Structures are given as structure tokens and as C-alpha cells.
């Protein structure tokens, strides 16, 4: 796959405790990763994921807090249920399960998100790009849409 | 000008048209027929007896169509209206009449709709009369018939092993060369088929004074009775050839303003920003749907806004039948209005 894998990163605002990581995510995020912050992973609606996938995302990463460390108590647990089922559901209709990943960050973790993003990117490049569900990319850019 | 086109010449005829036209033909899609461009592979005669599931109105007013494109500087430009010349083959008279009714909306002198006009100009409509009446159609009831010629460039009558080709317009004439004239005997045979089909269509309800009864019973609870089990979906209006309502929506992520089919049966159709909704429940919306077709069209152009194709009867998820509704409407009180 020539171009870099396009990743949509949905990040819960509370769990990147080290200012360095948060600063990296805010400023030095590589070109091919699109950041969307939300107050909690529980607030990430499957519609956001679908919108990103339809826009041509090759992979989705959701980073949130560990169980019992969620600022809103059970946001991450609700997200785990909903988004995991949504991931299985998308797999069922044609968007590989491995393209959507959840990452729990502990308060003391440092430098995890950069590492995981890089690993995820390599994994996606190995899987190659997909045109499944990418229905909003114009044909000129390789999409299927007139 | 009346010609004879043998049925086994039809595939070649279709192929020859395909050289400079896109030929739309009702073809099998799942368990129903649908107007689709003809690709060379299956140039075969259409044998499905009746109407397509979606009316050919979709070829003139598409379900979704870009109207305006946004430029980066915050200005606007017309969306592309180019369309290649095309033939719609196998159109039923009730649908052709409906497209002609919609012409009066989209080609009004004050604001003509360029998208509709362009599609009309570039399309030649070849109709096929219904020699076998369909179950839920009532075209003769609303003043038309299975061999109605309005809105068509050519009308075909199925004579068994050949079609009688009645050319009705200039653009229709250009399509048929080296076909010999129909003999007297074939003409009579066609006439007989046409009359038999016309008589075979039952009259479903009386249209006399229907408009006055609808106008004068705006507040009657007849509307509540007929719409009680209605789900408020869009099936009857989306499948209706004379329904033309559309919504205009900005698709931000495509940077264009888009026109989509819309229906008065949806809540948000007339919901105002203040929260007020002149038609809050399905009672008012059913009243609007029926009144528009059987009263307002008559006020505007003197024709009933329904061509009796029967699709709303066949596909309503709760089995509501417009014929029964209008039969019931005939029993509404009304007094002849001397004014007007």
C-alpha cells in the first residue's frame, strides 16, 4: 500500500495524564491520523466511527481509561460493550474486525499511545487499504461514488 | 403514422437505438421490475405484465440530485446538468400521464426547473399499453385508460407476435425507419384489444363532486377514521408517479446542496424552527395527501393529480386503499357551491 494507512483516532480527554503525551497527540500527530477528542469513550457514538469509515478511514483507534478509572464511572464500560458489538457488526457486513481497536491507558502510562499508534499503523499497512463502506470518497480519489 | 414492429425484431431494434441513446427498459430486479439502462447482454423482450415498482418519475426527478456546488470562496455554482440522450422504453400510460402532470409544476413560466427541463428534452418516451388490467389500478376511474396517449412519443400495442407502433410525436418518428405500415386488419385487431382492455378496467369510485366534498370537510373526523392505522411512512408517496415533493439539504461533507425525495407524511416535512407544526399528526398529513391529489391539483390545473396506477394500494404496509378512502369520502356531506 503506497500511501500511509489513514487512521481515525478517537481519544477520551481524561486519560492522557502525562502532558508530554497529550502535547504530542495535539501537535505532532502524523499526517495520516485524524484526531477527534471526546469527553469520554462512552460518548463515542457508533455514528462517529461509521462517518470516519465512510470517509475512507483504513482503521479506527479509540483510546480510553482503564475500568474503574473512568472520570464518568462507567463510560468506558458502556463504550466497551457498544463499540465492540459495533465492531463485530461491521465485520459481519464487510469491514474487517482488526481495523477497529480499543486502547486502555493507565494513569501512569507514558509513551504508550505513540507506540500503539505506530504498531497499529504497520498492522493496517500489512492488511492493505479497503474500499468497503468507503462510500463517500469521490471516484477520482479511488472511491466508488459518482 | 401506424407501423408494425415484429417482436423478434425488437432485440435488434433496441441494439440499434443503443448506439446513440441510453435505453431504459423495465428489467427484473429481485422479484419486481425496475427501469435500468439496457446493457447488451440481455436484450430481451419485457414480459412482466405490469408496472415497475418505482415509477419512471425517478428518471426525471431522481431520488437524490445535486443542485448547487459550494466553492471554496463561499460562493455557489450550478451543479452539472449534462445528460446523454435516452429512450425510456416500456413506459405505462399511467406513468407517462403522471410525468406530463409534473411538467406543469416544473416547467412553469415563472421559474422553470432546469434539471427537469434538460431531462425532458433529452428523453424519448415509448409507451406500452396494458392489454391485461392490473389488480389495483384504476386509471379509467380518474379519466385516463390503459392505452392513454398523453405524454408519450410512441405508443405500442401488443398484438401477440408483433407490436402496433403508433408514432405520436416528431422525436418518436426518428426512431423507426424501414417498418411497413400496419394493415387494416391489424389496425382493427389493435382497436379491439384497446377497447377490451379499457372496458375490463373496473370503475373503482365516483369522482363527481369529490373535490367539493374534500374541501368542505376539512375539519371532519373522516380524516381521523381513514388514517387511524397509517404508519406515517413514505411508501405511498415515494412510489406515486404524481408525487413531486422534494427536500433541499446541504451535504457538508460533499460540499453540495442536494435535492432528495420528500413526503408530506413525515413529521419534519412541515415542522417549523419555532417547534410549531401545522400538521402534527398523521390525520392532517393524510388529509394533505388526499386533498392535494383530488382537490388542489383540480384548483391549479383542472386535472385530478392521480393517474390510478395503484402502487399506493399494492405496497401500503398496513393495507390502506385509496379507492376505499375515496369511496368513503363520497358519503361526506356537501352543498353545491353557487359562487366560483
Amino acid at each position, binding site marked *: 500500500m503506497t500511501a500511509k494507512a489513514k487512521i481515525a483516532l478517537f481519544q477520551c480527554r481524561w486519560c492522557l495524564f502525562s502532558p508530554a503525551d497529550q502535547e504530542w497527540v495535539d501537535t505532532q500527530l502524523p499526517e495520516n491520523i485524524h484526531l477527534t477528542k471526546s469527553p469520554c469513550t462512552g460518548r463515542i457514538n457508533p455514528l462517529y466511527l461509521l462517518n470516519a469509515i465512510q470517509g475512507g478511514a483504513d482503521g479506527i483507534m479509540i483510546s480510553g481509561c482503564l475500568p474503574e478509572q473512568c472520570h464518568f464511572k462507567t463510560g468506558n464500560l458502556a463504550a466497551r460493550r457498544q463499540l465492540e458489538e459495533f465492531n463485530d457488526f461491521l465485520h459481519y457486513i464487510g469491514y474487517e474486525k482488526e481495523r477497529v481497536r480499543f486502547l486502555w491507558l493507565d494513569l501512569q502510562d507514558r509513551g504508550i499511545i505513540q507506540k500503539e499508534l505506530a504498531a497499529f499503523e504497520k498492522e493496517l499497512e500489512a492488511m492493505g487499504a479497503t474500499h468497503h463502506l468507503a462510500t463517500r470518497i469521490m471516484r477520482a480519489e479511488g472511491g466508488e461514488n459518482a | 403514422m401506424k407501423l408494425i414492429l415484429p417482436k423478434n425484431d425488437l432485440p435488434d431494434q433496441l441494439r440499434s437505438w443503443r448506439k446513440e441513446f441510453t435505453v431504459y427498459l423495465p428489467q427484473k430486479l429481485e422479484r419486481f421490475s425496475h427501469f435500468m439502462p439496457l446493457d447488451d447482454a440481455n436484450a430481451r423482450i419485457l414480459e412482466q405484465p405490469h408496472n415497475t415498482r418505482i415509477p419512471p418519475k425517478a428518471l426525471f426527478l431522481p431520488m437524490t440530485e445535486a*443542485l*448547487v456546488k459550494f466553492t471554496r470562496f*463561499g*460562493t455557489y455554482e450550478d451543479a452539472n446538468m449534462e445528460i446523454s440522450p435516452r429512450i425510456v422504453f416500456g413506459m405505462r400510460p399511467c406513468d407517462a400521464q403522471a410525468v406530463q402532470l409534473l411538467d406543469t409544476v416544473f416547467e412553469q413560466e415563472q421559474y422553470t426547473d432546469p434539471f427537469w427541463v434538460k431531462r425532458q428534452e433529452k428523453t424519448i418516451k415509448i409507451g406500452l399499453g396494458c392489454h391485461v388490467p392490473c389488480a389495483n389500478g384504476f386509471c379509467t376511474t380518474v379519466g385516463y385508460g390503459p392505452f392513454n396517449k398523453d405524454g408519450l412519443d410512441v405508443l405500442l400495442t401488443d398484438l401477440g407476435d408483433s407490436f402496433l407502433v403508433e408514432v405520436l410525436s416528431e422525436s418518436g418518428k426518428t426512431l423507426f425507419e424501414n417498418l411497413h405500415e400496419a394493415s387494416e386488419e391489424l389496425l382493427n385487431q389493435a382497436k379491439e384489444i384497446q377497447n377490451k382492455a379499457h372496458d375490463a378496467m373496473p370503475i373503482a369510485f365516483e369522482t363527481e363532486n369529490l373535490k367539493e366534498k374534500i374541501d368542505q370537510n376539512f375539519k371532519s373526523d373522516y380524516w381521523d377514521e381513514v388514517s387511524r392505522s397509517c404508519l406515517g411512512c413514505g411508501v405511498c408517496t415515494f412510489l406515486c408517479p404524481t408525487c413531486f415533493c422534494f427536500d433541499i439539504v446541504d451535504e457538508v461533507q460533499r460540499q453540495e*446542496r442536494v435535492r432528495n425525495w420528500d413526503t408530506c407524511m413525515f413529521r419534519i*416535512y412541515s415542522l417549523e424552527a419555532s417547534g410549531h407544526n401545522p400538521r402534527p399528526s398523521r390525520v392532517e398529513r393524510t388529509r*394533505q395527501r388526499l386533498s392535494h391529489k383530488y382537490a*388542489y391539483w383540480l384548483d*391549479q390545473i383542472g386535472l385530478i393529480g392521480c393517474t390510478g396506477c395503484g402502487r399506493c394500494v399494492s405496497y401500503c404496509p398496513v393495507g390502506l386503499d385509496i379507492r376505499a378512502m375515496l369511496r368513503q369520502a363520497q358519503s361526506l356531506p356537501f352543498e353545491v357551491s353557487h359562487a366560483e
Partner: protein
Amino acid sequence: MPNNNRSPYTPMPMRVLRAYYESTDRSLKTLELSFENFEDRKAFFAKFNPGQFCLLSVAGKGESALGVASAAWEGDFVRFTAQKMGTVTKALHELKSGDPIGMRGPLGNGFPLDDWKGKNLVIIGGGCAFSTLYALTKHVHHPDNREDYGKITLVYGTRTSGLCMYKHDIASWHEREDMEIHQAIDVPEENWLHHVGYVPDVVKEVAPSPENAVAVVCGPPIMTKFTLPALLELGFLPETIFTSLEKRMKCGLGKCGRCNLGHKYICKDGPVFSLAELNTLPPDL
């Protein structure tokens, strides 16, 4: 094609000349738009008549129908006053001068000024719907047009004094002798010198004479609902009472089918209707 060979759905490019809040609670904002192309402006003012409306377009948000609040002679701009209510009007409130904006218009029939020539005018407005009446009054105030019309009685009611639009201009109208102005607010406030009460009651109190007079009513539905009977009581005939109606609109050209009142479309056959005409149409508002 009439719209400078643009499709009737494509807005003409405009620019925000001035944008300022009209009410103290910042719910009403006035936008004065200038034309980017000369032909658009010529075509606009060739057809413009007070009482017409336009569809203001914000790319990516949609369009919203607003009455034109300026008379032709006031300058090469078009004024609108928008109440912050939905998606598009919120976007309109965020515009500042110099921003591009789209406009389609003028649409609708506007006030039948020719039929009103030689008659007294009773102008009754309420809330933010007063904008089209403001355009009418400014049009009539112009020296060339003033003689065409007789006595002018104006009643303008708002919920509070802060919500009154075009405050300075209206304040100056109290000194004019060629018109009689009655302002009203719903709830008494200190140093408020004019009427207190609802517009229908103020109209009964002012009791304009129906002799050779025409009344035009624009305001929230509740106000119109009670003002029309008040005028009938005063002796106005249904043919001489006019009102401007509002419904949800999308195309503004009588095509998308949604703003109908019976067989008439408010955007194409209206928005100004006489009460006589309204009586023949079903109450589908």
C-alpha cells in the same frame, strides 16, 4: 434563465456589509448585504417590492426565508433581521461584516402597492415580523411615494422595549406629522411613554377608521389571530385586510410542495394574502 443564467436554486453571491444586534437580548440580528455582481443588483431592484422575502444561504447549513427589511431607495444593500432559532439562523448570527453569503430572491408577491394608491394605510406589526412592514413604511416615507397614499397609522407591539427593532428610526417617527405611530409593549416598564398591552387591544383603542383605508397585519400567529377580528369589528372589509404568512419553506419557487395553504403556495402565490383570499383557503397553518 431569469436568475442571470443561474439555476433558480443557485444563490447569488453577496457579502455582509454591516451586521449588528437589533435587540438588547441579542436574539435579533440585522444583516445588511451588498451585491457582489452589478447585474444581480440591477435584476434584484428591478423586481423588488416591499413585502417580498429572500432565502439566505449559508454553505453547509442550508437556507432560511427572511423578509426584506429595507426599501429600494435606502441604498445598494438589502437588510434582513433574523431571530436566532434554528441551524441556519444560528449561523447567520455568527456572521460579521465582510463574510460571503448567498441569497436567492426577491421571492413572493409582496404588498399590492398599486391597489393601495390613494388609500389610508393602517400598518400593524408585532415582534420580528415587523421587518417587512418596516420596508413598507420606509418605502411609503420616500418623498416620491408619500403623496400616493393618505393617512398612515402604525401600531407596533413587542414583548419588551428591548425587543423593538430599528429603535432610533422608529423613535424619530413620533415627530413626523404625516403619520400617527403607536408603540406598545406587553409589560409596563419605567420611562416607557407609549401604550402597554397587546396589539389587538391597542388597535381597538386606536380604532383607525376603515374609510378608504387598507390594513396590513404582520406578526406572530397569535397576534394575527386576534387582530383580524378586531379590524373586522372596526368595519374593515376582508378585501382591505392583508397579512403575510409564514410556513416551512425549502425551494421558495412553488416546486417543493411543502408551504401550501390549500391549492396556493405561500412562497409563490403569497406571502401576502388578503383576508378575503384566506377565507377561501383551508386553515392549514
